[in-house]
């Protein structure tokens, strides 16, 4: 009994961690800022590749992962300054431009680094509960997902940067009038989103095949989570990830991976039909 309960909790936690970690970067860039960035998966790939490279150079894995996130963040900021900034009011153009960036990045990695890269191996070994064995590293990922949500909540609601960032995104003119350098805030916020994407790549790099297209395997899940969640990360994406994780873990345990995916996508259809503003729009409906 305990073993079965634990196994379901573990699978739920695993799916939850993946959805949260994969979607946080997108939640900020797409959910909060409203920027459609089709090169999001490439930030993830960037984080993973930098992490693997640093780890192979002998850096401890946690530092390597942070290095991956930092690198993706810096590249994100450079992209924001050079390209994305000019397209904030031209969403269709930004789709084409970021799609182009995505193709250049994927193909560039393929040409420069080859079709695949040596992995780093999953650390921390395994443990077993009642006949099933589990990877310990995945427990760490679950903890990180929760800490990530907590950290972002504190950042956006309890720091000066967070207040200014939210103000800038909600009412840029008003924020400018009070003396905020809004374009700097946009750059930093976009950079934060890119860094979180890089972090996702770094955290999952030890568990996956490293190929130039690996970022795209995160995209469906992260878009689904953000769309269901709606605009607000904490009122939206976190419960969205929890609900989707239950559906995915349950359906996959019952009928396999295909049904896990079907469940995920059906949920999106049902939720956006019933709650056009996503979960956060529905939860916050009384506030306006």
């Amino acid at each position, binding site marked *: 009994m305990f073993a079965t309960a634990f*196994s379901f909790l*573990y*699978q739920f936690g*695993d*799916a939850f961690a*993946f959805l949260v970690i994969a979607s946080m970067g997108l939640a900020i860039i797409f959910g909060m800022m409203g920027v459609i960035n089709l090169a999001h998966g490439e930030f993830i790939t960037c984080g993973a590749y930098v992490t693997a490279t640093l780890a192979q150079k002998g850096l401890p894995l946690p530092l390597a992962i942070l290095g991956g996130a930092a690198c993706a963040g810096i590249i994100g900021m450079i992209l924001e300054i050079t390209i994305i900034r000019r397209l904030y009011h031209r969403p269709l153009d930004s789709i084409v431009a970021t799609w182009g960036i995505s193709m250049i990045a*994927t*193909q560039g990695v*393929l040409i420069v680094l*080859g*079709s*695949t*890269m*040596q*992995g*780093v*191996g*999953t650390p921390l*070994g*395994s443990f*077993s509960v009642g*006949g*099933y*064995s*589990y*990877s310990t*590293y*995945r427990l760490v990922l679950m903890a990180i997902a929760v800490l990530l949500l907590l950290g972002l909540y504190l950042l956006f609601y309890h720091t000066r940067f967070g207040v200014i960032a939210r103000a800038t995104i909600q009412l840029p003119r008003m924020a400018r009038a009070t003396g905020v350098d809004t374009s700097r805030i946009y750059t930093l916020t976009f950079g934060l989103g890119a860094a979180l994407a890089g972090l996702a790549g770094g955290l999952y790099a*030890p*568990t*996956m*095949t*490293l*190929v*130039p*297209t*690996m970022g*795209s*395997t995160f995209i469906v899940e992260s878009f689904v989570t953000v769309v269901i969640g709606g605009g607000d990360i904490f009122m939206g994406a976190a419960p969205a990830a929890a609900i989707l994780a239950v559906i995915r*873990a349950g359906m*996959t*345990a019952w009928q*396999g*991976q*295909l049904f*896990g*995916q079907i469940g995920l996508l059906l949920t999106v259809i049902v939720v956006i039909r019933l709650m056009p503003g996503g979960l956060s729009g529905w939860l916050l409906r009384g506030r306006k």
Partner: protein
Amino acid sequence: MTFRTRMASALRLGCAAVALSATAALAQDGPIRIGVLEDQSGDFAAATMVKVNAITLAAEEINAAGGIGGRPVELVVYDTQSDNTRYQEFMRRVLQSDKVDVVFAGFSSASREAYRPIVNQFDGLAFYNNQYEGGVCDANMIVTGAVPEQQFSTLIPWMMETYGKNVYTIAADYNFGQISAEWVRKIVEDNGGTMVGEEFIPLGVSQFSQTIQNIQGAKPDFVVTLLVGAAQASYYEQAAAANVGLPMASSVNVGQGYEHKRFTPPSLKDMYVTTNYIEEVDTPESKAFIEKFRARFPDEPYINQEAANSYIAMYLYKSMVERAGTTDHAALRAEIAKGDVCFDGPSGKVCLDPKSQHMSHNIFLAKVNEDHSIEFPKVWENIAPYWLGEAGCDLTQNDPSEQYTPSNPPTK
């Protein structure tokens, strides 16, 4: 297309046919054009970029030795980007506007089934140089890759004898995985075993926690992994991290995507693969091939079974054209029908089977050790691609252009 343009194009075709036959003698002096449609980017690139290099190597060797019957070989290469619609576009382009004599095309079975109707439509000739789920009975296709009766009829009984009779299959959810899983099911049942589980994984899935648990819950003696593409290959790392510890059997791993080189040991420990070639094969022919290959392409990460198949296919085509004295497809098939189109290549002697236009193989059982080195516990010599012929496919008699499976055999 309106009726008028259709008439016009029919007329043009007719004229072209007359013109072609009139200039056939002249064309003999030009180069032999070979279309190469392989994935050089996208999900499958890791396994398939080497095929283009193998074909290039063979073409350069053939040209240096005087070409095919005195005519030089010219390659027309397109990157199909692991995308089935690109295969269709480029197959039309090589057959219609580039007018190649033969096409070497395809990695995934989905891509092959995407382009095959086009090859049939324009009566082209295509070599499919990949191991696959078997069953294609099509006179326009020549298959040099291994098929289930070569890979599974050897592997599965050996695994059942060695490890036990309870089998769990995880397979990529498309025609290759579904039909291969059907083969595994049939062979397991024929040998008195039990399928304790089967799961089909959509392409592109990279998270396997729940699948791993489903497998552990079913308690199989070994797992048959028929996973395809870079994303699905994440399974091995995740299964090793969860300490599943079950032996694995596969027809696709190691021999195609060299997972044993890419992943950190020991994630592929106790993986058994039947393959007709990998670079670890320790024969003089194989060593000579590797030496030539690395001299030409020093940065090649791994020389896999598809590289050998592509290379062999080039030489098979050469010998067919030289024997027939023409690139005409009917004449080439008449040569295959004689049953002695063979080549002594990197994997030993192989021959084309007239009935199915598939190739015989020496099948090597590759075992991945804890440090990811390879050993070969067993070699099956000269396994013929017998199933299609026995089931009733005979391309020397008629051309159904169908793909058959054990549950959907040819109607006799």
